[in-house]
């Protein structure tokens, strides 16, 4: 693959962003394994977690190729520090209660479906291929969380209130998914990725529709958290990484 150095660097950063979102959220979701409210949900959440890890692996593998420094996807997952992770803060927040997990899955899956719909038309074949595959899987994730939004919102007063609390708490973390900066601008100018301004507008429309159907009030949009995309994270990321990376770092090259 022949890319200008500048574009290559931007592409590497972008791939880390979308891979790390999935790696960290997948890890968070795996915390429900054995703790789901019902068996079906235990299975559903861990299946979704597995899809996210698989997508992260594919994007990280491609990122490693783009970087061209003979690192592997495993090196990128297990041997980077907090500051090198480029996921948005939304995905690293602790799993919270079931309503919190569902609201976050809904916000994230809706974003991924819109993003992957565009990325599957990327001018880079590899990025388009991985994203076309991720899109199919994520559509099922979106259906899962959307239906839970309806059930929790239309359920008891307690379930609706818990969902509203979750939405209120998460709302200020959603803006970072649509962050526009020089990386996004450089790549969208080359038709490698879509414009995030456009995706953001579609996301808001779809989320508003879901809120109407689930009797949830849209929170006031004010300050939006950011920093994750440049490696400035909440204190929660370090804890996830230490749990995720300890085995590989303690026993490098360990095999099953």
């Amino acid at each position, binding site marked *: 693959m022949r890319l200008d150095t500048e574009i290559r660097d931007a592409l590497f950063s972008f791939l880390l962003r979308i891979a790390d979102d999935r790696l960290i959220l997948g890890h968070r979701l795996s915390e429900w394994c054995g703790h789901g409210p019902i068996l*079906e949900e235990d299975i559903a959440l861990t*299946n979704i977690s*597995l899809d996210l890890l698989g997508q992260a692996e594919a994007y990280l593998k491609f990122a490693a190729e783009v970087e061209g420094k003979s690192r592997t996807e495993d090196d990128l997952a297990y041997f980077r520090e907090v500051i090198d992770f480029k996921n948005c803060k939304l995905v690293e927040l602790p799993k919270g209660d079931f309503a919190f997990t569902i609201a976050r899955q809904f916000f994230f899956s809706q974003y991924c479906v819109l993003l992957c719909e565009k990325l599957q038309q990327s001018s880079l074949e590899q990025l388009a*291929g991985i994203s076309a595959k991720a899109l*199919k899987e994520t559509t099922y994730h979106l259906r899962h969380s959307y239906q839970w939004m309806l059930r929790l919102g239309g359920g008891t007063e307690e379930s609706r209130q818990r969902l509203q609390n979750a939405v209120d708490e998460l709302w200020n973390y959603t803006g970072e998914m649509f962050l526009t900066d020089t990386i996004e601008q450089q790549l969208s100018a080359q038709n490698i990725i879509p414009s995030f301004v456009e995706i953001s507008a579609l996301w808001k429309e779809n989320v508003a529709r879901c809120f109407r159907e689930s009797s949830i009030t849209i929170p006031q949009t004010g300050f939006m958290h950011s920093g994750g995309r440049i490696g400035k994270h909440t204190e929660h990321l370090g804890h996830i990484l230490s749990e995720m990376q300890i085995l590989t770092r303690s026993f490098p090259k360990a095999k099953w």
Partner: protein
Amino acid sequence: MVMTEQTILGYLSEILDPEIPVLNIVEMGIVRSVFFENEKVVVTITPTYSGCPAMRMIEDNIVEKLKENGCGEVELKTVYTPTWTTDWLNEITKKKLQQYGISPPHTTSDNHFVEITLPKKISCPYCQSHQTSLKSDFSSTACKAMYYCNACLQPFEYFKEI
């Protein structure tokens, strides 16, 4: 014996999907192509699901099977385009699934599963009744959904169209 692409495909058809051991990896559409580069055999494969834990095992099985049958060097390449779809399963393959107790996938249609509405009625693999209900979009593996038959009172799995 002279090895041709057809012979290689024949060997690969003996490898079963570890999670659905009535289907082989060729009819599943996991094997995309086989060709020779001088003495080396190149097999291109595509994952069913990004996180499918069986893929690693399938890769090992391919190398092992071809070595057993006298292939020297074997190279595996993972490809993502075209994207794997259950539409590649033919009628014979679908029949095998049904006989194994898994309701076979419907044909995908544009936009079908982007709809938030519930999917169409799925028939029970045991009694063919359409009186079935979806319990969960996810089941023992990512590729299957969990259903319940209200006619014969059996839980069963449906191979999701994707």
